[in-house]
């Protein structure tokens, strides 16, 4: 018993639709409390994978375990413990948000009073209590998405699966949703799998990321690992309040710094891995006030784009 059993685990999971391979030998493992981001372009097989995890679609080959169960055989038991927010989640438009949640509660075997209480608690948690008694018809997309999360939480799940949770949301709505997701993972220890084609959001809240292209997981790991795996360098932007100060001596003292350049008031530091903590400590020791310290995201973006380019090259060969 060294590590907890993974909440989601797949081995060589494969799904064919006729001749097309939607998911190709996918290996995946998500422990409880982790937020795993499935990153890939549309049509990469993300939704197919999710449906197989829920037992809503049968794998052609390979094995799946969700909370230790086989979703194909124990579909009901798996569905009782896995919350799912589908891509562009829909609700019964003529019912209110509260009624929609109460229906889900009833489907999960909660009796009326328990269902009402649970719906009320969750509506509060996702910030919809004031609009709860309006029909869903008048909800915005962001509200529906939050209602979707509340809906998935009715069953108090061990695993939460979100398919493209931020599509079509304005930045504030997206932030709201992502913040909610992070809180669920840290406070409740829920294992979260979220699929997205938007790098920035996945990067911001996921512990680990899997890049998923044409049914294959081409890379996975933390953002740093991914960057390192691909010989990628990261760039850290630094700016200090003392504008004339020369940071070069301080920066050169840090191991793994391979490049130093300037961009106006900012210093750009090329590094092999994330050195922000050390950088900050050393600058502070040198009596410099850090006013800006940021790791540029372009590097992961470059990796992501590179995979997509490979994907395009691969398809052009046909």
């Amino acid at each position: 018993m060294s590590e907890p059993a993974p909440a989601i685990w797949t081995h060589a999971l494969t799904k064919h639709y006729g001749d097309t391979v939607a998911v190709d030998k996918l290996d995946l493992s998500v422990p409880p409390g982790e937020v795993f981001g499935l990153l890939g372009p549309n049509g990469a097989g993300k939704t197919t994978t999710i449906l197989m995890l829920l037992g809503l679609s049968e794998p052609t080959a390979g094995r799946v375990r969700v909370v230790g169960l086989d979703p194909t055989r124990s579909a009901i038991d798996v569905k009782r413990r896995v919350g799912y927010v589908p891509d562009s989640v829909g609700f019964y438009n003529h019912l209110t948000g509260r009624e929609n949640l109460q229906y889900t509660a009833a489907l999960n075997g909660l009796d009326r009073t328990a269902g009402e209480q649970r719906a009320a608690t969750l509506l509060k948690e996702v910030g919809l209590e004031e609009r709860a008694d309006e029909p869903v018809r008048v909800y915005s997309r962001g509200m529906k998405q939050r209602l979707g999360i509340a809906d998935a939480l009715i069953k108090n799940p061990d695993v939460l699966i979100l398919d493209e949770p931020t599509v079509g949301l304005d930045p504030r709505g997206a932030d709201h949703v992502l913040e909610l997701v992070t809180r669920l993972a840290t406070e409740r220890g829920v294992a979260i799998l979220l699929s997205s084609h938007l790098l920035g959001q996945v990067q911001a809240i996921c512990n680990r990321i899997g890049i998923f292209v044409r049914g294959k997981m081409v890379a996975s790991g933390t953002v740093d690992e991914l960057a390192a795996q691909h010989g990628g360098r990261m760039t850290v932007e630094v700016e200090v309040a003392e504008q004339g100060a020369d940071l070069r001596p301080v920066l050169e003292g840090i191991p793994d710094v391979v490049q130093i350049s300037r961009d106006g008031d900012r210093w750009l530091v090329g590094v092999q891995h994330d050195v922000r903590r050390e950088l900050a400590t050393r600058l502070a020791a040198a009596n410099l006030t850090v006013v800006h310290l940021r790791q540029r995201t372009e590097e992961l973006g470059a990796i992501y784009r590179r995979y997509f380019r490979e994907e395009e090259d691969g398809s052009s060969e046909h």
Partner: protein
Amino acid sequence: MAAPNTEARQDGRLAGLRQQAGRLGARVRRLLRRLPGADRLVPRARLAWAGLSRSSGGPRAGWRVVAAKEFGDNIGSIRFVILLVIIGLACVGAVVTAAGSLRDAATEASQTPSPFLLLFTFAPQDQTIPAFVALVAFLGPLLGIAFGFDAVNQERADGTLPRLISQPIYRDDVVNGKFVAGLATIGVTLVILVAVTSGVGILRLGITPSAGDVVRMLVYLVITLAYIGVWLAFAVLCSVLLRRAATAALAAISAWLVLTLFGSWLAGVISNVVGPDDAIGQARLEYTLSQVTPSGLYDASAAALLDPSVRSVGLLFAEQLDRAVPGTLPLSQSMLVVWPQLTALIAGCVVLFTAAYVAFLRQEIRA
């Protein structure tokens, strides 16, 4: 951050109405959930429906929750009100007309075995409005179509289907629950129709139904439910197979029009073209063909059930009636006369529902 919701305010009155309807629906749902004995019945139903190779300990009754919600939606829907009013008015009109003519021929009426039942089957020659049974035979399928044509495809269109079946229920709970809810709604409608028309008829005619009449009416209700159930099952099948609710409605309505309006005409044409040369052979074929359509089966069953003096359905020759003593049949004998028709109606309903069920279970969930 509750921004004032102008849209909601503008149709505040409509929202109020909807809320009332919703409250009624919720009350109905609550009542249904309290149905006695359902908890004991459900595990057995589970076994019968879906027990194969599935793990035990599912939630108490997924289909019952679905059915309760759908029934609430149906009852609170505008289409329920519209259909009830339209069919109700037509039926009341039919019964009032029939009652008027019957009263004129009061002596004649008093000799018939069940003057009360005549209210529903009698259409005066000089009037344009058909008899109650003919109206129900014609308009009834609309009820079935109305509560089935968007059962599954609307869930798909609204994106609620993935969410619904990712709840711990079996996939068949969805289609079972919706079908049961549709049948229940149709049942409620029929009971209301028969109750209102009976009341009007009693007032107009001044004749109260005998116990036998009431039993016959109840059996008639069940048959009507089976007849409309055929159309409900067909509409649900359309809603599974056709992705757009509008297409499904069109398909179901065109099938209804062809079979109900042109069914007998088609039977005539076909038997004329492909039938044997002799008139009797052609008539036989025509009758057989008419019995393929739900309305043909239903017309025959309703006629025999509501008129105790009907002793046979189908072709009758003069020599068969020779020296026959006119008389009335008890209910059991009436039912025996139309037993094949009853069985065929129920079988048609079951077959169509099974087709919808299987099609839904085999479908991929992705749109």
